[in-house]
C-alpha cells in the first residue's frame, strides 16, 4: 500500500490483503534503521486471520519517502496522522525497539486511537552508548557491527534459525546496511534523547504486553523495570535464550506471545 501523507510517499505492507472496514487493525512499527520486512511473518499471519494488518515504513525508511524524523514524539505524531489518513478509529500498536517507544508515545498522545500496546525489546529510557552513536553519525559500518553483536544472543549469531536456510546475522546486517546512510543515526539519536517514556507509560491505560529477550544486551530486561512499574498491570513475557532481534531469532515464540496478548 502506498499513499501520500504530509507530501511524502508512505509505504505499508498489508500482507497482500486489502483493508476491510470493521475489522480490528494491528499496526507493526519497526526498530531503528530497519523496515517493514522484519514483520513479514507476523503481518502475513494477522492479515489472514481476521485483522487489517499493516507493517509501516516510518518516514525515510524502507520504501517510504522523506527523511527520518528527529524525535520519538515526531514519529508518534506522524503515526497518528497515518492512522487518521487511513480513517481507522483505533488500532493495536505493536512496536519493536525504537518502534516500541513510538507506539508508547502515540498511545500517550492519543489514547483513544490505540486499542492496545505490545512492546517488544522495550526499555525506558533507551540510552545508546557513545561509541555506537558516534559510529552511526559517521555512517561507519562499525555501528552495524556493534548492533549485530549486541542484538543477537550468541547462539543466534551461530545459527539454528527456524526460518530454513536464512543466516539471520547476515540477513539483519544487510537490512541495517540499507539504512546506514544517515537513517540509523537519526533513529538511534531519537531513542537516546527520548525522555518522556515514563510520563507516557503512567499516562496510558490501554492493555500493554511487553515481550523481552532474556539475553538482550541492547535493551536488557532489567532496563525495562521502570517502564513495567510505570505501566498499570502490564503483562510481561520473557523469551529464554533470545536477544534483541527476537523477530528473527525466535519468530515462533514471538508469534505465540503476540497471540496470547491479543487473546487476553
Amino acid at each position: 500500500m502506498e499513499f501520500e501523507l504530509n507530501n511524502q510517499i508512505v509505504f505499508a505492507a498489508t500482507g497482500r490483503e486489502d483493508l476491510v472496514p470493521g475489522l480490528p487493525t494491528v499496526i507493526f512499527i519497526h526498530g531503528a534503521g530497519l523496515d517493514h520486512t522484519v514483520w513479514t511473518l507476523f503481518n502475513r499471519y494477522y492479515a489472514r486471520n481476521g485483522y487489517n494488518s499493516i507493517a509501516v515504513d516510518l518516514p525515510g525508511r524502507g520504501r517510504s519517502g522523506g527523511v527520518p524524523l528527529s524525535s520519538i514524539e515526531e514519529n508518534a505524531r506522524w503515526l497518528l496522522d497515518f492512522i487518521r489518513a487511513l480513517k481507522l478509529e483505533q488500532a493495536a500498536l505493536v512496536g519493536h525497539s525504537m518502534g516500541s517507544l513510538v507506539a508508547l508515545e502515540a498511545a500517550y498522545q492519543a489514547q483513544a486511537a490505540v486499542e492496545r500496546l505490545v512492546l517488544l525489546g522495550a526499555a525506558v529510557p533507551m540510552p545508546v552508548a557513545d561509541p555506537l552513536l558516534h559510529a552511526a553519525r559517521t555512517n561507519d559500518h562499525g555501528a552495524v557491527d556493534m548492533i549485530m553483536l549486541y542484538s543477537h544472543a550468541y547462539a543466534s549469531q551461530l545459527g539454528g534459525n527456524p526460518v530454513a536456510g536464512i543466516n539471520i546475522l547476515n540477513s539483519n546486517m544487510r537490512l541495517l546496511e540499507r539504512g546506514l546512510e544517515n537513517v540509523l543515526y537519526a533513529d538511534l539519536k531519537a531513542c537516546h534523547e527520548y525522555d518522556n517514556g515514563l510520563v507516557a507509560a503512567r499516562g496510558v491505560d490501554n492493555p500493554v504486553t511487553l515481550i523481552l529477550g532474556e539475553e538482550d544486551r541492547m535493551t536488557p530486561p532489567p532496563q525495562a523495570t521502570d517502564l513495567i512499574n510505570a505501566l498499570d498491570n502490564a503483562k510481561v513475557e520473557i523469551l529464554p535464550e533470545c536477544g534483541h532481534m527476537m523477530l528473527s531469532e525466535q519468530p515462533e515464540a514471538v508469534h505465540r506471545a503476540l497471540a496470547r496478548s491479543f487473546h487476553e
Partner: protein
Amino acid sequence: MKYPGFDTISLHGGQRPDPVTGARAAPIYQTTSFVFRETDQASSMFDMARSGHVYSRISNPTVGVLEERIAGLEGGTGAVAAASGMAAIHLAVCTLMDGGSHIVSSHALYGGTHNLFSYTLPRFGIETTFVDPRDPDAFKRAIRPETRLVYAETIGNPRCEVLDIETVAGIAHDAQVPLMLDSTLTTPYLLKPFEHGADIVIHSLTKFIGGHGVAIGGIVVDSGRFDWDNSGKFKTLTEPYPGILDIDFAEDFGPDAFLHRARREGLRDFGAALSPANAFYILQGVETLALRMDKHVANTRKIVECLDNNEAVEYVTYPELPAHGDHELAKKLLPRGCGSVFSFELAGGRAAGRKFIESLKVFSHLANVGDAKSLVIHPASTTHSRMDDDALKQAGISEGLVRLSVGLEDPDDLVDDLKRALYRSQI
C-alpha cells in the same frame, strides 16, 4: 567483541545442541514431513506466515544446518541446498529468469555447466554468450538488453583462469544484473567472492566442502546485496507471484527475496532437494574444511614444483607459478593458495596421456575433484568430451592436457607416483 570466526562457524554454524536429546552432532532428520501442532499453524506455514518445516523437499532441519553454515562461511544472508551442484545452478538460473533471457558467461566452465548453458537452457528460451574470462571487456560487450546474469567460475576448470571478480562485478552491476560465481574450487576458506562484489555463489558440495567423495550435493548462497527492485529486471522477485497468494518477494523479504523464491518455487516445483543423509555427510566435511584446504594447497605446491621441473611436462597451469597469466591477480585474490585442481600438458599427446594415467598407483582415475584422495582425469575424453572442437579450443583443452585434483596423502608418495608415471608415459 567480534563475530564468530571461520573455524567456529565450520563447527557450530547453523546448529544448536538438540533441544530434546542434547545430541551435539547435527542429527539426521530422516523424515519426509513434520507434524503441525495445530491446524492454524499448518495453514499459516503454507502461507509463509509462520516459520518451521513442512516437507523435506522444501526444507529439512539437517539440511538447514548445512545451509546456514555455508551461508555463514561465505558471509551470505542464507543459502538453499540442492541435490547436486548442477541442480544448484539450474535452481539459481531459473529463479532469476524466464524464456527470452540471456546469460553472459565465461567460457572456462565445468563441462556440465557448459552443456546446460549451450544445449539445455536454449530449449527453454534462455541463451548464453560465452566470453574469455581474462577479458573483462568481453563481458561488457556481450551484455544485451535481455541479459539477466553474468556467470563465471572463480578459478576456471581445468586451466585455472582466475576471474577479476571486482571488475566483472562492476560490469554486471552497471548493467543492473547480478554476478553469479561457481566457487567450488576455491571454497570460502580460500576466497570469499562476496567480499569482492559477487552477488550469488554456487558450490558443488560434492567437492572440497564435502571433501570425502561420499555424497553429492550443491548449494546457492546469496549475498543479499543485489537490489532487485532498483534493477527492475527481475519480475520473479518484484511482482506478485500467484503461486503463493500473490506474494511479492522483494517487498516482503528484502535482502532474502531471492532465497525465498528459490526455495518456495524452485525446490517445490523442480524438486531437486538435498537429502538429509547427504547433508549430514557433507557437514562432517565442513567441520575440517580449513585444515583440509591448507593441506590440499601445501601438497599441491610440492607437486606443481615437481611437475614444473620434469622434462615430460610441457607446461603446468597453476596460478601460483609466475608464468601463469593470472599470477598477479591470484596473489591478490587467493593469498591462502589457489586450490588443488590444476592441469598440465604432457609431452606426447593423447597416447602419452593414456600411459601416464594407467601407470598411476596412488592417484585415482575418475570424474571428480576435491576428494581427500588424489584424482586424475583426461578432460578432452571425459568431463569436457561433449564440447565441440571450437569450444575445447576456447576452453584451452588440448589432447595432452591432464587434470589433477591433489588430495591429502603424504606428498612424497604423490610425487613418487607422478614421477613414475611420467617416466612410463614417455617410453
